[in-house]
């Protein structure tokens, strides 16, 4: 049975709001990075940029947005298509396994990014 126990915030309104705010943060981040790359950047200036506290905070904000956005989006996809209604009883095995795998991968990404920028 599909329940909301594995949803990001257990609340439809929160998930919906987080999904939209996180998309704006990601858009701002990737536009900023895109402009940096398009205007020409070498290792020294790239390193200097990411050594600033403001950029570290921005990157941390972006990975937080990425984790929440992906979690909410994929949870929605999984609870649409990988259900008992769509796949039979196997859906109730496949869905939680994939949900847990996605959450674990996202947490690993987040820790990895923190280690890269603060390590």
């Amino acid at each position, binding site marked *: 049975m*599909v329940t*909301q126990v594995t*949803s990001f915030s*257990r*609340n*439809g*309104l929160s*998930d*919906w*709001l987080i999904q939209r705010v996180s998309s704006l943060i990601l858009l701002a981040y990737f536009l900023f990075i895109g402009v940096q790359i398009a205007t020409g950047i070498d290792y020294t200036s790239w390193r200097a940029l990411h050594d600033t506290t403001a950029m570290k905070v921005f990157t941390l904000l972006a990975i937080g947005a990425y984790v929440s956005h992906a979690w909410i989006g994929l949870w*929605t996809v999984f*609870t*649409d*298509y990988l*259900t008992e*209604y*769509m796949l039979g009883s196997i859906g109730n095995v496949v869905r939680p396994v994939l949900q847990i795998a996605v959450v674990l991968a996202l947490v690993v990404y987040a820790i990895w990014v923190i280690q890269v920028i603060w390590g």
Partner: protein
Amino acid sequence: MLQVSVYRFNPETDAAPQMQEYQVETGGKDLMVLDVLEMIKAEHDASVTYRRSCREGVCGSDGLNINGKNGLACITPLSDAVKKNKLVLRPLPGLPVVRDLVVDMSLFYAQYEKIEPYLQNNSPAPAIERLQTPEDRAKLDGLYECILCACCSTSCPSFWWNPDRFVGPAGLLQAYRFLADSRDQATDERLAKLDDPFSVFRCHGIQNCVNVCPKGLNPTRAIGHIRTMLLNRAA
């Protein structure tokens, strides 16, 4: 001669559904799709099964999938539906077929029941009626006209995937009809029941419902209003 292809399925006797072909003489008239079905039943095959009642777009009985688009057979003219002299009639998608073009609407009605589609007001009833200003009454326009034909909900993929949890466009249009009613006092309780990840938020705004509504209503806009009310309530 119009080529008509009709979905046939009797779950009690058939292993699988099949499409049956009919050649119907329309005499060049721009008939309604329901007229063609009536001709098939009267002149070709009396076993073809469908629902119909008022035959003028008021009762909502004859919702069908007509050449791939949901609509009411009684008010859809052939000139709007027929492509290359071919008319394909299927039952509304996503609901179990009872027989041929008749679907089991239990899930649809269960979602309608869930939103408590009646006025809730615990203040003492006035002698004559609960009055509204013309401005408050105008807020119900575009909402109360729904005839529950299910064309919208059965064209919505989110309703196909989660018919037991997503209220669907028809139910949500009616939910907003009571949320917007100045005489209703259960706004907070109604909103509290819509706050989960499924009931409202499975709508991704693809507007299939708007595209097919035979009454020209806009469930997506109503769902947007519900979201705004939920946000204002939480803020």
